[in-house]
Protein backbone atom coordinates (compact mmCIF):
# COMPACT_ATOMS: atom_id res chain seq x y z
CA UNK A 1 0.00 0.00 0.00
CA UNK A 2 1.16 3.51 -0.81
CA UNK A 3 1.71 5.95 1.98
CA UNK A 4 2.54 9.10 0.10
CA UNK A 5 0.51 11.98 -1.27
CA UNK A 6 2.14 12.90 -4.56
CA UNK A 7 -0.72 13.78 -6.86
CA UNK A 8 -4.39 14.68 -6.52
CA UNK A 9 -4.98 12.19 -9.33
CA UNK A 10 -3.93 9.34 -7.01
CA UNK A 11 -6.87 9.86 -4.70
CA UNK A 12 -10.06 7.87 -5.08
CA UNK A 13 -13.40 9.52 -4.38
CA UNK A 14 -13.64 7.76 -1.02
CA UNK A 15 -10.11 8.83 -0.05
CA UNK A 16 -10.85 12.43 -0.93
CA UNK A 17 -14.14 12.48 0.98
CA UNK A 18 -12.41 10.86 3.98
CA UNK A 19 -9.77 13.61 3.94
CA UNK A 20 -12.43 16.35 3.67
CA UNK A 21 -14.49 14.82 6.51
CA UNK A 22 -11.41 14.46 8.71
CA UNK A 23 -10.47 18.07 7.98
CA UNK A 24 -13.93 19.15 9.12
CA UNK A 25 -13.20 17.63 12.54
CA UNK A 26 -9.69 19.12 12.54
CA UNK A 27 -11.23 22.55 11.89
CA UNK A 28 -13.05 22.27 15.21
CA UNK A 29 -9.70 22.08 16.99
CA UNK A 30 -8.95 25.59 15.70
CA UNK A 31 -12.00 26.88 17.60
CA UNK A 32 -10.73 25.59 20.93
CA UNK A 33 -8.69 27.49 23.50
CA UNK A 34 -5.94 24.87 23.26
CA UNK A 35 -5.33 24.18 19.58
CA UNK A 36 -3.28 21.06 20.05
CA UNK A 37 -3.71 17.30 19.70
CA UNK A 38 -1.22 14.66 20.93
CA UNK A 39 -1.70 12.51 17.84
CA UNK A 40 1.77 12.73 16.24
CA UNK A 41 3.75 13.02 19.46
CA UNK A 42 7.25 11.66 18.93
CA UNK A 43 7.07 11.74 15.13
CA UNK A 44 9.45 13.91 13.15
CA UNK A 45 8.33 15.76 10.03
CA UNK A 46 10.73 17.65 7.78
CA UNK A 47 9.55 20.53 5.64
CA UNK A 48 11.95 20.29 2.72
CA UNK A 49 11.55 23.48 0.69
CA UNK A 50 13.74 23.83 -2.38
CA UNK A 51 11.57 26.69 -3.59
CA UNK A 52 10.37 29.70 -1.61
CA UNK A 53 6.85 29.46 -0.28
CA UNK A 54 6.12 31.11 3.01
CA UNK A 55 2.39 30.51 2.83
CA UNK A 56 2.51 26.75 2.21
CA UNK A 57 5.40 26.20 4.61
CA UNK A 58 3.80 27.93 7.57
CA UNK A 59 0.51 26.22 6.82
CA UNK A 60 2.20 22.81 6.98
CA UNK A 61 4.20 23.90 10.02
CA UNK A 62 1.05 25.00 11.88
CA UNK A 63 -0.64 21.69 11.01
CA UNK A 64 2.35 19.64 12.17
CA UNK A 65 2.65 21.56 15.43
CA UNK A 66 -1.06 21.30 16.19
CA UNK A 67 -0.67 17.53 15.93
CA UNK A 68 2.38 17.65 18.27
CA UNK A 69 4.91 16.42 15.68
CA UNK A 70 8.55 17.51 15.94
CA UNK A 71 9.13 19.87 13.03
CA UNK A 72 12.37 20.50 11.15
CA UNK A 73 12.39 23.25 8.54
CA UNK A 74 14.85 22.92 5.73
CA UNK A 75 15.23 25.55 3.05
CA UNK A 76 17.58 25.04 0.15
CA UNK A 77 18.98 28.54 0.43
CA UNK A 78 22.06 28.52 2.63
CA UNK A 79 21.99 24.72 2.91
CA UNK A 80 24.34 22.19 1.32
CA UNK A 81 22.03 22.14 -1.69
CA UNK A 82 23.49 25.51 -2.67
CA UNK A 83 26.91 23.85 -2.39
CA UNK A 84 25.84 21.24 -4.93
CA UNK A 85 24.37 18.42 -2.80
CA UNK A 86 21.90 16.24 -4.69
CA UNK A 87 18.33 15.34 -3.70
CA UNK A 88 19.53 11.80 -3.08
CA UNK A 89 22.18 12.91 -0.58
CA UNK A 90 19.73 15.17 1.21
CA UNK A 91 17.23 12.31 1.39
CA UNK A 92 19.81 9.93 2.81
CA UNK A 93 20.80 12.47 5.45
CA UNK A 94 17.15 12.75 6.51
CA UNK A 95 16.78 8.97 6.50
CA UNK A 96 19.79 8.68 8.81
CA UNK A 97 18.10 11.12 11.19
CA UNK A 98 15.03 8.89 11.42
CA UNK A 99 12.53 11.23 9.84
CA UNK A 100 8.92 9.93 9.64
CA UNK A 101 7.57 12.23 6.94
CA UNK A 102 8.93 14.66 4.37
CA UNK A 103 6.88 17.55 3.06
CA UNK A 104 8.63 18.56 -0.15
CA UNK A 105 8.34 21.65 -2.34
CA UNK A 106 10.54 21.50 -5.43
CA UNK A 107 10.87 23.50 -8.62
CA UNK A 108 11.21 20.36 -10.71
CA UNK A 109 8.04 18.47 -11.64
CA UNK A 110 8.35 14.90 -10.41
CA UNK A 111 10.86 15.48 -7.58
CA UNK A 112 8.46 14.25 -4.84
CA UNK A 113 7.60 11.17 -6.91
CA UNK A 114 11.30 10.43 -7.32
CA UNK A 115 11.86 10.85 -3.59
CA UNK A 116 8.94 8.56 -2.74
CA UNK A 117 9.76 5.77 -5.16
CA UNK A 118 13.53 5.67 -5.39
CA UNK A 119 14.08 3.80 -2.14
CA UNK A 120 16.37 6.52 -0.80
CA UNK A 121 14.14 7.16 2.15
CA UNK A 122 11.55 5.22 4.13
CA UNK A 123 9.48 8.22 5.24
CA UNK A 124 6.06 9.21 3.96
CA UNK A 125 6.35 11.87 1.24
CA UNK A 126 3.81 14.68 0.89
CA UNK A 127 4.00 16.85 -2.20
CA UNK A 128 3.76 20.55 -1.33
CA UNK A 129 4.07 21.65 -4.95
CA UNK A 130 6.42 20.43 -7.67
CA UNK A 131 7.17 22.59 -10.69
CA UNK A 132 4.11 22.97 -12.90
CA UNK A 133 2.89 19.47 -11.99
CA UNK A 134 0.86 19.07 -8.77
CA UNK A 135 -0.08 20.64 -5.47
CA UNK A 136 -2.51 18.10 -3.99
CA UNK A 137 -3.11 19.69 -0.58
CA UNK A 138 -4.01 22.98 -2.32
CA UNK A 139 -6.59 21.13 -4.43
CA UNK A 140 -7.95 19.47 -1.29
CA UNK A 141 -8.28 22.73 0.59
CA UNK A 142 -10.02 24.31 -2.42
CA UNK A 143 -12.46 21.38 -2.58
CA UNK A 144 -12.97 21.69 1.18
CA UNK A 145 -13.75 25.41 0.85
CA UNK A 146 -16.20 24.72 -2.00
CA UNK A 147 -17.93 21.92 -0.09
CA UNK A 148 -18.36 24.16 2.95
CA UNK A 149 -19.72 27.10 0.97
CA UNK A 150 -21.75 25.26 -1.67
CA UNK A 151 -23.02 22.17 0.19
CA UNK A 152 -22.76 23.29 3.81
CA UNK A 153 -20.51 22.73 6.79
CA UNK A 154 -22.51 19.94 8.42
CA UNK A 155 -24.60 18.94 5.42
CA UNK A 156 -21.38 18.34 3.49
CA UNK A 157 -20.10 15.49 5.67
CA UNK A 158 -19.75 12.37 3.54
CA UNK A 159 -20.69 14.33 0.41
CA UNK A 160 -18.71 15.05 -2.74
CA UNK A 161 -19.17 17.94 -5.19
CA UNK A 162 -21.46 16.19 -7.68
CA UNK A 163 -23.12 18.53 -10.10
CA UNK A 164 -21.19 21.64 -9.03
CA UNK A 165 -19.80 23.73 -11.86
CA UNK A 166 -16.36 25.18 -11.29
CA UNK A 167 -14.56 27.60 -13.58
CA UNK A 168 -10.79 27.98 -13.31
CA UNK A 169 -9.47 31.14 -14.94
CA UNK A 170 -6.02 32.32 -15.96
CA UNK A 171 -2.52 30.95 -16.33
CA UNK A 172 -3.37 27.25 -16.61
CA UNK A 173 -0.11 26.51 -18.43
CA UNK A 174 2.12 27.25 -15.46
CA UNK A 175 -0.37 26.29 -12.77
CA UNK A 176 0.00 23.14 -10.69
CA UNK A 177 -3.04 24.39 -8.78
CA UNK A 178 -5.19 24.17 -11.93
CA UNK A 179 -3.86 20.71 -12.78
CA UNK A 180 -4.43 19.34 -9.26
CA UNK A 181 -7.87 20.92 -9.05
CA UNK A 182 -9.02 19.48 -12.37
CA UNK A 183 -7.99 15.98 -11.21
CA UNK A 184 -9.55 16.21 -7.77
CA UNK A 185 -12.74 18.06 -8.74
CA UNK A 186 -13.37 15.52 -11.48
CA UNK A 187 -12.90 12.69 -8.94
CA UNK A 188 -15.40 14.46 -6.66
CA UNK A 189 -17.99 14.68 -9.43
CA UNK A 190 -17.78 18.39 -10.29
CA UNK A 191 -17.78 19.79 -13.82
CA UNK A 192 -14.71 21.89 -14.46
CA UNK A 193 -14.23 24.52 -17.17
CA UNK A 194 -10.81 26.04 -17.77
CA UNK A 195 -10.78 29.57 -19.14
CA UNK A 196 -7.49 30.99 -20.40
CA UNK A 197 -5.90 32.79 -23.31
CA UNK A 198 -4.97 30.19 -25.96
CA UNK A 199 -1.28 30.83 -25.27
CA UNK A 200 -1.67 29.83 -21.63
CA UNK A 201 -3.39 26.49 -22.25
CA UNK A 202 -1.03 23.50 -21.96
CA UNK A 203 -0.46 21.04 -24.79
CA UNK A 204 -2.49 17.87 -24.28
CA UNK A 205 -5.24 19.59 -22.33
CA UNK A 206 -7.82 17.75 -24.48
CA UNK A 207 -7.10 14.63 -22.46
CA UNK A 208 -7.90 16.37 -19.15
CA UNK A 209 -11.33 15.65 -17.71
CA UNK A 210 -12.64 19.21 -18.23
CA UNK A 211 -14.01 21.72 -20.73
CA UNK A 212 -11.90 24.49 -22.27
CA UNK A 213 -13.11 27.99 -23.07
CA UNK A 214 -11.42 31.19 -24.17
CA UNK A 215 -14.33 33.41 -23.17
CA UNK A 216 -14.78 34.23 -19.48
CA UNK A 217 -18.05 36.17 -19.81
CA UNK A 218 -19.99 33.26 -21.31
CA UNK A 219 -19.09 30.90 -18.46
CA UNK A 220 -19.75 33.17 -15.47
CA UNK A 221 -23.55 32.83 -15.29
CA UNK A 222 -23.36 29.03 -14.96
CA UNK A 223 -20.55 28.77 -12.42
CA UNK A 224 -20.97 27.82 -8.76
CA UNK A 225 -17.37 28.82 -8.08
CA UNK A 226 -14.86 30.86 -10.07
CA UNK A 227 -11.24 30.23 -9.22
CA UNK A 228 -8.83 32.92 -10.36
CA UNK A 229 -5.21 31.86 -10.87
CA UNK A 230 -2.19 34.03 -10.34
CA UNK A 231 -0.35 35.07 -13.47
CA UNK A 232 3.04 33.53 -12.78
CA UNK A 233 5.43 36.11 -14.14
CA UNK A 234 8.41 34.27 -12.66
CA UNK A 235 7.71 31.20 -14.79
CA UNK A 236 7.08 33.16 -17.99
CA UNK A 237 9.99 33.15 -20.37
CA UNK A 238 8.11 34.49 -23.39
CA UNK A 239 5.31 36.89 -24.19
CA UNK A 240 2.08 34.97 -23.63
CA UNK A 241 -0.23 37.96 -23.97
CA UNK A 242 0.25 41.48 -25.40
CA UNK A 243 -0.10 43.59 -22.25
CA UNK A 244 -1.18 43.18 -18.66
CA UNK A 245 -4.00 45.59 -19.36
CA UNK A 246 -5.34 43.47 -22.16
CA UNK A 247 -5.12 40.32 -20.04
CA UNK A 248 -6.93 42.09 -17.25
CA UNK A 249 -9.66 43.32 -19.61
CA UNK A 250 -10.38 39.85 -20.99
CA UNK A 251 -9.61 37.53 -18.10
CA UNK A 252 -9.61 39.68 -14.97
CA UNK A 253 -12.48 39.45 -12.51
CA UNK A 254 -14.06 42.80 -11.63
CA UNK A 255 -17.30 43.88 -9.98
CA UNK A 256 -19.28 43.88 -13.23
CA UNK A 257 -18.25 40.34 -14.06
CA UNK A 258 -18.91 39.18 -10.49
CA UNK A 259 -22.45 40.56 -10.79
CA UNK A 260 -23.08 38.12 -13.67
CA UNK A 261 -22.37 35.15 -11.42
CA UNK A 262 -25.29 33.39 -9.66
CA UNK A 263 -26.16 34.73 -6.20
CA UNK A 264 -24.63 31.80 -4.31
CA UNK A 265 -21.45 31.55 -6.39
CA UNK A 266 -18.07 32.13 -4.73
CA UNK A 267 -14.78 33.59 -5.91
CA UNK A 268 -11.58 31.72 -5.05
CA UNK A 269 -7.90 32.46 -5.41
CA UNK A 270 -4.95 30.32 -4.29
CA UNK A 271 -2.96 33.44 -3.40
CA UNK A 272 -0.89 35.47 -3.49
CA UNK A 273 -3.27 37.78 -5.36
CA UNK A 274 -2.04 40.38 -7.81
CA UNK A 275 -4.72 43.00 -7.24
CA UNK A 276 -5.67 44.95 -10.32
CA UNK A 277 -4.44 42.27 -12.72
CA UNK A 278 -6.35 38.99 -12.31
CA UNK A 279 -8.73 40.30 -9.64
CA UNK A 280 -9.85 43.80 -8.64
CA UNK A 281 -9.72 45.00 -5.04
CA UNK A 282 -13.52 45.27 -5.06
CA UNK A 283 -13.87 41.53 -5.77
CA UNK A 284 -10.97 40.50 -3.54
CA UNK A 285 -12.51 42.27 -0.55
CA UNK A 286 -16.09 41.13 -1.14
CA UNK A 287 -17.91 38.54 1.01
CA UNK A 288 -17.96 36.12 -1.87
CA UNK A 289 -14.18 35.93 -2.04
CA UNK A 290 -12.86 33.00 0.02
CA UNK A 291 -9.12 33.72 -0.03
CA UNK A 292 -8.78 34.11 3.75
CA UNK A 293 -10.98 31.07 4.42
CA UNK A 294 -8.82 29.06 2.03
CA UNK A 295 -5.76 29.85 4.16
CA UNK A 296 -7.48 28.73 7.38
CA UNK A 297 -8.86 25.63 5.66
CA UNK A 298 -5.34 24.81 4.45
CA UNK A 299 -4.22 24.09 8.00
CA UNK A 300 -7.20 21.78 8.63
CA UNK A 301 -6.62 19.89 5.37
CA UNK A 302 -2.91 19.43 6.09
CA UNK A 303 -3.70 18.19 9.60
CA UNK A 304 -6.11 15.67 8.09
CA UNK A 305 -3.55 14.46 5.53
CA UNK A 306 -0.81 14.14 8.16
CA UNK A 307 -3.13 12.27 10.51
CA UNK A 308 -4.35 9.87 7.82
CA UNK A 309 -0.85 9.14 6.50
CA UNK A 310 1.09 9.11 9.78
CA UNK A 311 -1.41 8.67 12.62
CA UNK A 312 -1.53 4.87 12.54
CA UNK A 313 0.71 1.97 11.66
CA UNK A 314 -0.43 2.11 8.06
CA UNK A 315 -2.03 4.89 6.06
CA UNK A 316 -5.80 5.20 5.77
CA UNK A 317 -5.58 6.69 2.31
CA UNK A 318 -5.46 4.18 -0.52
CA UNK A 319 -3.86 4.91 -3.82
CA UNK A 320 -4.70 3.70 -7.27
CA UNK A 321 -1.42 4.57 -8.91
CA UNK A 322 0.60 1.53 -9.90
CA UNK A 323 4.23 1.86 -9.03
CA UNK A 324 6.94 1.87 -11.62
CA UNK A 325 10.03 -0.13 -10.84
Amino acid at each position, binding site marked *: MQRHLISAADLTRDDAV*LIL*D*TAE*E*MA*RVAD*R*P*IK*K*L*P*TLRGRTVVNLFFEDSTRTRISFEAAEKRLSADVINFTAKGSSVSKGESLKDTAQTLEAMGVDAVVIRHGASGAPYRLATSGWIDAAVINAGDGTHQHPTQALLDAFTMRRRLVGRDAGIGQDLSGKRITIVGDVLHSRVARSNVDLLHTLGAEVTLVAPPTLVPVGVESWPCEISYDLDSTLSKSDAVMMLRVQRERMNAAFFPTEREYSRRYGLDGDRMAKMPEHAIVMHPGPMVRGMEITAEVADSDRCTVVEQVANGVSIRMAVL*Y*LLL*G*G*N*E*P*AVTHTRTEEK
Partner: protein
Amino acid sequence: MDTEQDKQQYEADARPVLEAPDIARVLTRIAHEIVERAKGADDVVLLGIPTRGVFLARRLADKLEEITDRKIPVGSLDITMYRDDLRMHPPRALARTEIPGDGIDGRLVVLVDDVLFSGRTIRAALDALNDIGRPRAVQLAVLVDRGHRELPIRADYVGKNLPTSLRETVKVQLAEEDGRDTVLLGAKRTSPDAQQ
Protein backbone atom coordinates in the same frame (compact mmCIF):
# COMPACT_ATOMS: atom_id res chain seq x y z
CA MET B 1 -14.68 -5.82 8.37
CA ASP B 2 -17.54 -8.05 9.49
CA THR B 3 -19.68 -9.46 6.74
CA GLU B 4 -23.44 -9.47 7.17
CA GLN B 5 -23.27 -13.26 7.51
CA ASP B 6 -20.67 -13.03 10.32
CA LYS B 7 -22.85 -10.51 12.08
CA GLN B 8 -25.93 -12.70 11.87
CA GLN B 9 -23.96 -15.74 13.07
CA TYR B 10 -22.64 -13.76 16.05
CA GLU B 11 -26.09 -12.54 16.97
CA ALA B 12 -27.48 -16.07 16.71
CA ASP B 13 -24.77 -17.42 19.05
CA ALA B 14 -24.74 -14.51 21.51
CA ARG B 15 -26.86 -14.39 24.66
CA PRO B 16 -28.83 -11.23 25.42
CA VAL B 17 -28.13 -9.97 28.93
CA LEU B 18 -30.15 -6.76 28.76
CA GLU B 19 -33.23 -6.21 26.61
CA ALA B 20 -34.93 -2.94 25.65
CA PRO B 21 -37.05 -2.55 28.83
CA ASP B 22 -33.98 -3.32 31.02
CA ILE B 23 -31.93 -0.67 29.22
CA ALA B 24 -34.72 1.90 29.65
CA ARG B 25 -34.96 0.99 33.34
CA VAL B 26 -31.23 1.26 34.09
CA LEU B 27 -31.01 4.60 32.29
CA THR B 28 -33.87 5.91 34.42
CA ARG B 29 -32.04 4.70 37.53
CA ILE B 30 -28.77 6.32 36.43
CA ALA B 31 -30.60 9.59 35.75
CA HIS B 32 -32.01 9.55 39.29
CA GLU B 33 -28.57 8.73 40.71
CA ILE B 34 -27.05 11.68 38.84
CA VAL B 35 -29.70 14.06 40.22
CA GLU B 36 -29.18 12.60 43.70
CA ARG B 37 -25.41 12.92 43.68
CA ALA B 38 -25.25 16.27 41.92
CA LYS B 39 -27.99 17.64 44.19
CA GLY B 40 -30.29 18.64 41.37
CA ALA B 41 -28.03 18.43 38.32
CA ASP B 42 -27.84 22.24 38.01
CA ASP B 43 -24.45 22.33 36.36
CA VAL B 44 -24.39 18.90 34.73
CA VAL B 45 -23.11 18.54 31.17
CA LEU B 46 -23.41 15.11 29.54
CA LEU B 47 -20.69 14.13 27.05
CA GLY B 48 -21.20 10.90 25.14
CA ILE B 49 -18.30 9.00 23.64
CA PRO B 50 -19.08 8.07 20.01
CA THR B 51 -20.80 6.14 18.72
CA ARG B 52 -23.20 4.57 21.18
CA GLY B 53 -22.21 6.68 24.17
CA VAL B 54 -23.68 9.69 22.36
CA PHE B 55 -27.09 8.03 21.98
CA LEU B 56 -27.02 6.98 25.64
CA ALA B 57 -26.09 10.52 26.68
CA ARG B 58 -29.04 11.93 24.72
CA ARG B 59 -31.42 9.43 26.30
CA LEU B 60 -30.07 10.27 29.75
CA ALA B 61 -30.52 13.98 29.06
CA ASP B 62 -34.18 13.38 28.16
CA LYS B 63 -34.70 11.49 31.38
CA LEU B 64 -32.92 14.17 33.41
CA GLU B 65 -35.13 16.78 31.80
CA GLU B 66 -38.22 14.81 32.85
CA ILE B 67 -36.96 14.67 36.43
CA THR B 68 -35.60 18.20 36.81
CA ASP B 69 -37.76 20.08 34.30
CA ARG B 70 -34.66 21.70 32.91
CA LYS B 71 -32.79 21.32 29.63
CA ILE B 72 -29.52 19.46 30.24
CA PRO B 73 -26.67 20.25 27.79
CA VAL B 74 -25.48 17.21 25.81
CA GLY B 75 -22.42 16.88 23.61
CA SER B 76 -20.11 14.28 22.16
CA LEU B 77 -16.41 13.74 22.73
CA ASP B 78 -14.41 11.83 20.13
CA ILE B 79 -11.28 10.39 21.71
CA THR B 80 -9.64 8.89 18.60
CA MET B 81 -6.80 11.42 18.48
CA TYR B 82 -5.97 10.77 22.13
CA ARG B 83 -5.85 6.95 22.02
CA ASP B 84 -2.64 5.35 23.24
CA ASP B 85 -2.88 2.57 20.64
CA LEU B 86 -3.11 4.88 17.61
CA ARG B 87 0.14 3.60 16.20
CA MET B 88 -0.87 -0.05 16.45
CA HIS B 89 -3.76 0.24 13.98
CA PRO B 90 -4.55 2.09 10.76
CA PRO B 91 -5.89 5.58 11.52
CA ARG B 92 -9.61 5.56 12.20
CA ALA B 93 -12.08 8.00 10.72
CA LEU B 94 -12.79 10.72 13.26
CA ALA B 95 -16.18 11.02 14.89
CA ARG B 96 -17.84 14.25 15.95
CA THR B 97 -16.73 16.27 18.96
CA GLU B 98 -19.45 18.71 19.95
CA ILE B 99 -19.14 20.68 23.14
CA PRO B 100 -22.32 22.49 24.27
CA GLY B 101 -22.26 26.25 23.73
CA ASP B 102 -21.53 27.26 27.30
CA GLY B 103 -18.47 25.02 27.44
CA ILE B 104 -17.46 22.79 30.32
CA ASP B 105 -15.53 25.20 32.55
CA GLY B 106 -16.70 24.91 36.14
CA ARG B 107 -19.36 22.33 35.20
CA LEU B 108 -19.91 18.77 36.36
CA VAL B 109 -19.12 16.71 33.27
CA VAL B 110 -20.63 13.23 33.14
CA LEU B 111 -18.90 11.11 30.50
CA VAL B 112 -21.22 8.49 29.02
CA ASP B 113 -20.12 5.30 27.29
CA ASP B 114 -21.69 1.97 26.46
CA VAL B 115 -19.09 -0.50 27.78
CA LEU B 116 -16.32 0.04 30.34
CA PHE B 117 -13.51 -2.44 29.74
CA SER B 118 -9.77 -1.68 29.97
CA GLY B 119 -10.34 1.97 30.97
CA ARG B 120 -8.08 3.25 28.19
CA THR B 121 -10.91 4.99 26.35
CA ILE B 122 -11.78 6.91 29.51
CA ARG B 123 -8.13 7.81 30.07
CA ALA B 124 -8.09 9.24 26.55
CA ALA B 125 -11.35 11.09 27.24
CA LEU B 126 -9.85 12.68 30.36
CA ASP B 127 -6.90 13.87 28.27
CA ALA B 128 -9.25 15.26 25.64
CA LEU B 129 -11.27 17.11 28.30
CA ASN B 130 -8.04 18.68 29.53
CA ASP B 131 -7.59 20.36 26.14
CA ILE B 132 -11.17 21.61 26.01
CA GLY B 133 -11.59 23.21 29.41
CA ARG B 134 -11.56 22.74 33.16
CA PRO B 135 -14.65 21.02 34.56
CA ARG B 136 -15.51 21.31 38.28
CA ALA B 137 -15.57 17.50 38.42
CA VAL B 138 -15.76 14.60 35.99
CA GLN B 139 -17.92 11.53 36.53
CA LEU B 140 -18.44 8.43 34.43
CA ALA B 141 -21.67 6.66 33.51
CA VAL B 142 -21.62 3.35 31.61
CA LEU B 143 -24.33 0.97 30.52
CA VAL B 144 -22.18 -2.12 31.15
CA ASP B 145 -19.03 -2.61 33.22
CA ARG B 146 -17.40 -5.83 32.06
CA GLY B 147 -14.27 -5.62 34.24
CA HIS B 148 -10.64 -6.30 33.17
CA ARG B 149 -9.40 -2.80 33.93
CA GLU B 150 -5.84 -1.94 32.85
CA LEU B 151 -5.87 1.48 34.53
CA PRO B 152 -7.09 2.74 37.91
CA ILE B 153 -10.46 3.94 36.58
CA ARG B 154 -13.92 3.22 37.98
CA ALA B 155 -17.41 4.26 36.91
CA ASP B 156 -19.66 6.40 39.10
CA TYR B 157 -22.87 5.09 37.55
CA VAL B 158 -23.13 1.54 36.20
CA GLY B 159 -26.15 0.12 34.38
CA LYS B 160 -25.08 -3.47 34.88
CA ASN B 161 -21.97 -5.10 36.24
CA LEU B 162 -21.24 -7.99 33.93
CA PRO B 163 -18.39 -10.28 34.98
CA THR B 164 -16.90 -11.59 31.74
CA SER B 165 -13.96 -13.66 30.59
CA LEU B 166 -11.51 -12.24 28.08
CA ARG B 167 -12.72 -14.86 25.63
CA GLU B 168 -16.13 -13.22 25.62
CA THR B 169 -17.33 -10.10 23.86
CA VAL B 170 -19.94 -7.59 24.95
CA LYS B 171 -21.86 -5.87 22.20
CA VAL B 172 -24.31 -3.07 22.83
CA GLN B 173 -26.95 -2.43 20.20
CA LEU B 174 -29.09 0.68 20.29
CA ALA B 175 -32.15 1.51 18.25
CA GLU B 176 -30.63 4.72 16.84
CA GLU B 177 -27.74 2.82 15.23
CA ASP B 178 -28.68 -0.86 15.13
CA GLY B 179 -32.46 -0.84 14.96
CA ARG B 180 -32.97 -2.45 18.38
CA ASP B 181 -31.95 -2.11 22.01
CA THR B 182 -30.02 -5.04 23.46
CA VAL B 183 -26.76 -6.02 25.14
CA LEU B 184 -25.29 -9.25 23.81
CA LEU B 185 -22.71 -11.49 25.45
CA GLY B 186 -20.98 -13.68 22.90
CA ALA B 187 -17.87 -15.72 22.30
CA LYS B 188 -14.87 -14.04 20.72
CA ARG B 189 -14.27 -15.36 17.25
CA THR B 190 -10.70 -16.41 16.70
CA SER B 191 -9.24 -16.84 13.27
CA PRO B 192 -7.41 -20.16 12.58
CA ASP B 193 -4.10 -18.22 12.46
CA ALA B 194 -4.62 -16.76 15.92
CA GLN B 195 -5.09 -20.20 17.47
CA GLN B 196 -1.66 -21.43 16.48
